């Protein structure tokens, strides 16, 4: 229970942080390609920092795998949105979208993990 809850909170934290930092740096009208590359770089740095801080409590793999998806792909999505001025108008709304994105990615990773878990080769049976 501790780890399950912690995984979601970690994902939400990375999502919120990425969304807010991207919002602070990417301005409406910025070239979308540059914005997306910038968003990816921001997400990469943030997920590494937050992932390394949280890993001793939640586990390296279980923290870093979802965090990398949230940070880098989320960073690109948030940057695309902000360069088009097509998204949340307040910081609270930006954070909420980041939180929802983070939680959904963690859920997706957990579902995928369940599907993949188990023997993929067993020559004895």
């Amino acid at each position, binding site marked *: 229970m501790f*780890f399950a809850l912690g995984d979601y909170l970690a994902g939400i934290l990375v999502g919120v942080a990425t969304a807010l930092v991207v919002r602070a740096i990417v301005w409406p009208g910025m070239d979308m390609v540059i914005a997306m590359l910038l968003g990816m770089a921001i997400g*990469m740095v943030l997920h*590494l920092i937050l992932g390394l801080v949280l*890993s*001793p*409590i*939640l*586990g*390296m*793999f*279980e923290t870093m*795998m979802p965090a*990398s*998806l949230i940070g*880098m*792909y989320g960073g690109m999505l948030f940057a695309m949105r902000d360069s088009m001025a097509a998204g949340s108008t307040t910081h609270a709304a930006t954070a909420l979208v980041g939180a929802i994105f983070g939680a959904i990615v963690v859920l997706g*990773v957990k579902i*995928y*993990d369940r599907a*993949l*878990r*188990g*023997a*993929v*080769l*067993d*020559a*004895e049976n």
Partner: protein
Amino acid sequence: MDRETQRKWDSASRTLDLFAFAEDRRLGPHKRRLFSKMRGATLMVAAGTGNDFKFFPPSMHVVAIDISPKMLERAARKVAEYEGSIELREMDVCDLEFAEASFDTVATACTFCSVPKPIVGLRELRRVLKPGGQILMFEHVRSGIGPLGILMDLMTPLFRRVGPELNRDTVGNVQKAGFRLRRVENIYLDVVKIIEAVKDDAT
């Protein structure tokens, strides 16, 4: 001896135990299940700070090697807590000082993400295994899931400086080194895996 690798892991020895709390609870049961298959003379490669000793079955005699003397200093404190005997040796897996066919079992835990020449290291392990001997591996590898695999490729140059590589094909490397795969199991996504392989009698 690969001095660059030795320095990197000497430096990492200061922080490795920080990750033990969560890793022991989340991955420990899988390691215990894997290492319960140890039999006969056993070689543990990359013992690190000795965090995995507690997952060994009791009453074994294990030779545990690591390239880093700083890691072994920390591991020495945990040897006394094991209900069996563990002999620590400073050694590079790519240049083992053991005679051919010395061991029945080789065990590794998150080792071949870090060995600079993994196939050379695995061939050395095959050399020191007796015919019919087994290798029990708990390893992380590159994900075959498209977006995740790409991320691991992107992050590897950064991680390589301070720790492991994230995009190794360890299952493939085990086969390239001449082992026959006995069992492969996904533990977390398709990234953390149990790999069991055998040195066939005839080879």
